[in-house]
């Protein structure tokens, strides 16, 4: 019998190999001269690494995400807690939030360039916008869904309003907040790539668009795309790890 852990690696690995094979022969048989085969992309990776832009651009993109996302987290969680706590505040803010939320962060690109020029700040601002609303809404809903017993118990044990917020409401809402944080980070990573194509001249998004514009280097375009995917997976895994901490695991269905 094949062990379970072996099978868990076997099938995904086979799928990946199959995808590479299909890709390789699709390029060969269609005789396309534009789209590169896997081996050319691998060579592209090596070239980018040699030029030293691979890690620098990845670091640039990550820096922007961490800054914008960190800012959204620092402002979004308190805002969400407040709106979840105060029905009046929620009623007042809700129309504005609901109106701004469906606007793609990319629609803000012209605004952010007017405000910040072609700079890091422009992309950080876009990432902030992209992650702020999901975080606020998830936190607000998380607070609203807290079982009333927890809140009553908090009152009964003579906690100050600040303590109730910190020791009851935040931990009780945390599983939902974390789900919001994970979704927001995914969006932030999508947005940074798009923002970098327009608003700055470094980063993985810039690498994609620059490789295309400067000599139609599709081997480099695809290499950058793959790197974007890999880092995105990494960020998601990181957030899933956080969700498995013992003090929040109660809020998630056994996965």
């Amino acid at each position, binding site marked *: 019998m094949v062990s379970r852990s072996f099978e868990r690696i076997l099938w995904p690995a086979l799928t990946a190999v199959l995808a590479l094979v299909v890709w390789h022969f699709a390029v060969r048989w269609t005789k396309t001269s534009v789209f590169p085969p896997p081996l050319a992309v691998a060579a592209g990776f090596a070239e980018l690494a040699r030029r030293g832009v691979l890690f620098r651009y990845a670091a640039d993109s990550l820096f922007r995400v961490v800054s914008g996302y960190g800012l959204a987290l620092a402002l979004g969680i308190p805002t969400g807690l407040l709106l979840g706590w105060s029905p009046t505040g929620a009623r007042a803010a809700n129309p504005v939030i609901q109106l701004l939320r469906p606007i793609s962060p990319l629609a803000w690109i012209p605004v952010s360039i007017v405000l910040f020029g072609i700079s890091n700040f422009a992309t950080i601002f876009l990432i902030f916008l992209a992650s702020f609303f999901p975080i606020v809404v998830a936190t607000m809903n998380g607070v609203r869904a807290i*079982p009333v*017993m*927890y809140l*009553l*118990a908090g*009152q*009964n*044990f*003579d*906690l100050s309003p600040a*303590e109730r917020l910190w*020791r*009851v409401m935040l*931990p*009780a809402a*945390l599983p939902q907040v974390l789900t919001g944080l994970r979704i927001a980070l995914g969006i932030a990573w999508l947005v940074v790539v798009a923002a970098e194509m327009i608003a700055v001249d470094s980063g993985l998004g810039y690498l994609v668009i620059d490789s295309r514009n400067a000599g139609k280097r599709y081997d480099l375009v695809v290499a950058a795309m793959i790197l974007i995917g890999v880092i995105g997976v990494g960020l998601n895994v990181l957030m899933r790890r956080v969700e498995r901490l*013992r*003090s*929040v*695991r*109660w*809020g998630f269905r056994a996965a």
Partner: protein
Amino acid sequence: MKPAAELVPDRAKLSIRGLEMTFRAEGKETRVLHDIDLDVREGELVCILGPSGCGKSTLLNIVGGFLTPTAGSVTIDGEPVSGPDPRRIFVFQERGVFPWLTVEGNIGFGLGRLPEAERAKRIAHYVGLVGLTGFEKAYPQELSGGMKQRVEVARALAVNPDMLYLDEPFGALDSITRLVMRSELLRIWGAERKTILFVTHDIDESVQLADRVIVMSARPATIRRVVTIDLPHPRDLSSRRYLELRDGIFEEIGLAHRI
């Protein structure tokens, strides 16, 4: 005539007078409690017994300070109740345990103002008292329903309140665990004499536990009868007096004692 639930005033820990509660929702008025008078002595275990939905939990929530009555007064030690108070802890069904804290964290929840050493000592004492030694670092989701209920009782006792309000605390447990928890509650009550108000819809439970059983009517709830359970603990559940008291309450509520 109204059943006499009043005591000589100076001996009462808790005094309820002329309590009325009417809820208003969507223009409709629902009268839940009517003309409740009740006194509870220091150290007494009183069960409030009534059918589901009769308003007994509302009564407990008013006494606990979570609800304001439409009319009437609730005083404890001569002071009117104006809100929740750490001297009187409300115990919900086990759902009130905080799932983000360990057993230790839950039991120490109300002890934030104590120095660390004193806090640890109290936690250890109450972990032992409710029989959870070895589970200090466990999270509630790893515990059974009965163990969670123990955690909640310990969390309440740890702040050294003088009253405990228990709202159908064993209602969600299976019948065997429920029996065990009743004798555990009596053991703990023997060790730390608190005044206990215990809301239940289980006749047997009330006769097994209480010094006095307050039998409530259906909504709007009034006090139908007050039954003094003059049996020492531990109670023999097949003794004639026990069965007599129990059957008396069955009849009072109008239930045939046969299936």
